[in-house]
């Protein structure tokens, strides 16, 4: 059975590592900034639909870089150590929570930088902020399990992109459609809440599948 204390300790370990090394944070920050500069130089201030597409693609690439690290940094010896002190469920729950927090911060940061350099074509700022958070959460959950799979397959980071891009498309499509509402597009009554519910349902399914499937990846 997962215990709250173990999950908290593992979560705190990842967070402390991040705060002390500050490798992901500044690495990703540089990544976002340089991507946005290139985009600005190439496109200037794009119109709303191009902005929307660029934003979610950018978030996808950030996620691959940020989440991949969380499993790839764990060496074989360290995994053995975790194996002896905690259960599979503790471990995956801690990782899910940590990646969720990381992606939440990264999504909001890239939203800030995007608005600063590429302009902010959305009409409803608050609702787009909410959609960005929802998007960061959805993407981070899917990629946590995929990172665990890729880490098992000889620590292959490129594999994560190959596995992840097709699998993330349902969520990404929903997110792109939902965020159009923040750009002022009008939906049929109920269509928007239906899509948000569907996205939350998919997220819940991904979490449940991660909890069920991760113990099989954990044993070696």
């Amino acid at each position, binding site marked *: 059975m997962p215990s709250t204390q173990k999950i908290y300790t593992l979560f705190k370990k990842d967070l402390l590592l991040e705060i002390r090394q500050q490798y992901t944070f500044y690495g990703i920050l540089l990544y976002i900034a340089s991507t946005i500069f290139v985009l600005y130089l190439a496109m200037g201030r794009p119109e709303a639909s191009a902005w929307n597409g660029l934003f979610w693609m950018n978030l996808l690439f950030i996620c691959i870089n940020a989440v991949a690290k969380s499993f790839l940094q764990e060496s074989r010896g360290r995994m053995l150590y975790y194996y002896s002190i905690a259960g599979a469920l503790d471990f995956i729950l801690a990782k899910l929570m940590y990646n969720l927090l990381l992606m939440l911060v990264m999504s909001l940061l890239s939203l800030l930088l995007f608005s600063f350099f590429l302009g902010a074509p959305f009409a409803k700022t608050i609702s787009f902020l909410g959609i960005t958070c929802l998007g960061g959460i959805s993407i981070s959950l899917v990629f946590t*399990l995929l990172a665990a*799979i890729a880490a*098992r*397959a*000889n620590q*292959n980071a490129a*594999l994560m992109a*190959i*596995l992840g*891009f*097709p*699998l993330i*498309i*349902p969520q990404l*499509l*929903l997110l792109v*459609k939902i965020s159009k509402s923040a750009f002022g597009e009008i939906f049929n009554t109920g*269509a928007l809440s*239906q*899509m948000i519910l*569907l996205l939350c349902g*998919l997220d819940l*399914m991904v979490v449940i*599948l991660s909890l069920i*499937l991760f113990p*099989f*990846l954990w044993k*070696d």
Partner: protein
Amino acid sequence: MMKKSWWKILAIALLLYTFTAGFLIQVPIIGNLNQTIRNLFFHVPMWFGQMVLLLVSMIYAIRYLRSGNLADDIYAREFARTGIIFGILGLVTGAIWASYTWGEPWSNDPKQIAVAIALLIYLAYFVLRNSMPDMDKRARVSSVYNIFAYFIYVPLIMVLPRLVQSLHPGGQGVEGNPAMSGKDLDPTMRLVFWPAVIGWTLLGVWISTLSIRISKIKEKNWINA
């Protein structure tokens, strides 16, 4: 012999029926479909077949995780492979149909895109498999991926295309082909359609079992060990 292979005989009989009755019966002429509506007996069963084959593949992946028997992994792999073949055939038959009714073989229809993505998901399954030389690890990791992939595959092809406008029947908007989806399928066409679905699906299972037998012979050293 009859006891074991009755379903193969049934598959042949149903497919013979599909090919004869499918081309001979009176079909309703709807819109610009004309006689191309007969493709319903070939194009649509590919997707039914793919769903069944991939479901079977996932069930064997679950079985592998529970039993650790490498034979189960071979089943999962070969059913997924036939599922991919059915997907390619479905895309090709759809493209031929579309070039006569929609004017071009590929029109970025949501369903076309969704099934193309589904193909990518399952091709990635084989990339993942080949990235690991160790057999037990390969079987376990790819089983986990297989199960995860099926749960994404179903909403991808069943739910998402229904939320948007589509040229296919069943989508939102008025542009879809009329009077061909589900319950308002023509009664005489239904008499051929469902046998065709069963026949093609059985053929898919048959192809899979053949390749499973070949794999088992090739890999018997590992399975028995």
